[in-house]
């Protein structure tokens, strides 16, 4: 935890002030993490407006449930977890993942287009945003947030195999999109 963060207040001071409803402290916390969290939100959303809604919903939850933060892990990690959970909840509301997968037709590994490594962050986000909801969710959780397929299956209430197949399809679709965009052979 950083010893000194905003206006001479440590993160612990800010949390304490937020718990007492100090609006200034809440504002400081929001601006400390909003940039990083906006990037998380946009990965879980189809477009910017949806990401902005997700960010706002999440921070309202963060401040209203701050008393549940037990100082055991990092505050940033806790905030990120709430963002991800809110994104998952929203995703479950807006779409139904009801998909049967024929694993026989899935090719697990494909060659990695070199172009991925030269794409900018914005371009990568754009690629993720273009994925169907289910693919995007699983790809984000597995590839970037570091969840296991078992965890994903529990969170999204799907089979572990479905999680694996969604991830594989997501990767495939990303490659195809890059291929289409940059005319690079897969």
């Amino acid at each position, binding site marked *: 935890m950083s010893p000194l963060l905003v206006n001479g207040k440590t993160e612990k001071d800010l949390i304490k002030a937020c718990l*007492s*409803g*100090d*609006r200034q402290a*809440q*504002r400081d916390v*929001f*601006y400390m993490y*909003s*940039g*990083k969290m*906006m*990037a998380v939100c*946009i*990965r879980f959303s189809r477009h910017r407006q949806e990401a*902005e*809604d997700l*960010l*706002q919903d999440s*921070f*309202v939850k963060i*401040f*209203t449930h701050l008393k549940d933060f037990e100082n055991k892990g990092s505050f940033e990690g806790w905030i990120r977890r709430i963002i991800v959970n809110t994104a998952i909840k929203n995703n479950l*509301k*807006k*779409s*139904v993942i*009801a*998909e*049967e997968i*024929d694993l026989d037709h899935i090719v697990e*590994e494909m060659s*990695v287009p070199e172009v*991925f*490594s030269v*794409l900018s*962050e914005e371009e*990568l*986000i754009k690629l*993720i945003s273009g994925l169907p*909801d289910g693919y995007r969710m699983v*790809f984000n959780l*597995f*590839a*970037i947030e*570091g969840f296991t397929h078992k965890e994903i299956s529990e969170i999204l209430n799907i089979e572990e195999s479905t999680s694996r197949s969604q991830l594989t399809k997501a*990767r495939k679709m*990303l*490659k195809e999109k890059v291929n289409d965009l940059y005319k690079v052979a897969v």
Partner: protein
Amino acid sequence: MNSIDKIFRSKLSHHTLETPDDAWTNIASRLPDQKKKFSPWWMIVSILAIVSSSVATFLYFKKDMLMQEMNSPVQISDQEFIATNYHEQQEGTLIAELSKYEPTFDRNNAGNDNGLKFSKSGFSKNTEPLILNSSSNLEFFNQPEKTSFEINTPLINKIYFRPISNFLKFEIQNMKGNLNYGNSPIGKDHSICPTMEIQKKKLSLELYVSHDYAPKILKPLSEDMLPYAAIRMETEKASYSFSAGLRFNYQLSDKWSVLSGLNYSQINERFNYIDPESNQTREITIKDYIYQNGKIVDSIINKQTVIIPGETKLSVKNKYSSVDIPVLGRFRVIDNSHINISGIAGIYLNVSSVTKGMAFDSDNISILDISNNSGIGKEIFKNYLGISPYIGLNVSYHINPSVDFFAEPHARFQTSSITKADYPLTQRYNTYGLTTGVKYNF
């Protein structure tokens, strides 16, 4: 994790983006109101503040009183005069009714070895013993005979001038000598501490703050408004309320006095609701697969647009404040040198009433601005509430002759609705509270 995952993670896990300018404003508007710096402890703090200020006042006046005792004559005029003999409490109480007298006590010329004289002109330096004769209208309690007393005043070694409550009290302590009733000694070689009390002027000023609880009474004017009344009761909860003010007390007699002044009351409530504007329109995609021989051959995609009910909980503080003129009567039940207990009853005449906040409208969906100085609330809530009966029990502790501390549990009842006649509900409040304050006796 494959190489694509690694690229995405390395580039995006610490990526940051600009947030929209109005994001924080939107979030802040959805957060609960900022907690007040005051906690429930403030009630205790306010009581402590009153007590400490009372003590400070006492000390100030005590100092002032001592200075007065040492340096200046005390003029007491046109007052009731009561003398009490506490001698071993077995000879009864000695009462002197000297209401026509105008005693004067001059510290500079009295209280030394030469003794005191009590006369129509008061206490003064005199070589003669203090003589109380029949012209002083001295009477034994329960023995209303005129009599005379002779007290060997040179043996008095201490004289206290100690004003208390509504009285100025003279105590003569450690008086050695003979106090006779006729030819019978009633106090010989005893410590006799006769006390004389003079009732003071009868006007006082009270400053107070009251900690109130004010439950709401909502009554629908027709049966079909019962659900609306229920929704309002459910969404609007009473919170800490208070009142404060000042009032003058004028004593009409030993037992009765009247009070009037100015009172400010604020009834607070918390209106909690789910923002109906927070409903979200979502598109649901359902994919049905068509199987043939256990294999997927086709799929049908159905898209539906649904409205997901809002979940945004909002909380608004509703305030019902009023300014009133209390017109009250007080009857003293117990009144001694330390404590006064009296019953208080009367009415509060409303001067103005202001409402502020929000509530559900009678359609049970939209939100209503109940501020009666603007918007639609102006057409619903009154600006003048008429009279409300008040009843209380006042317990005062005499800190010094000029200052009392008092506590007053009380109840106040609104007789008429704060809403206008065409509103489908009547809305009233009964207030129960504990007033604490200080009283300054002029």
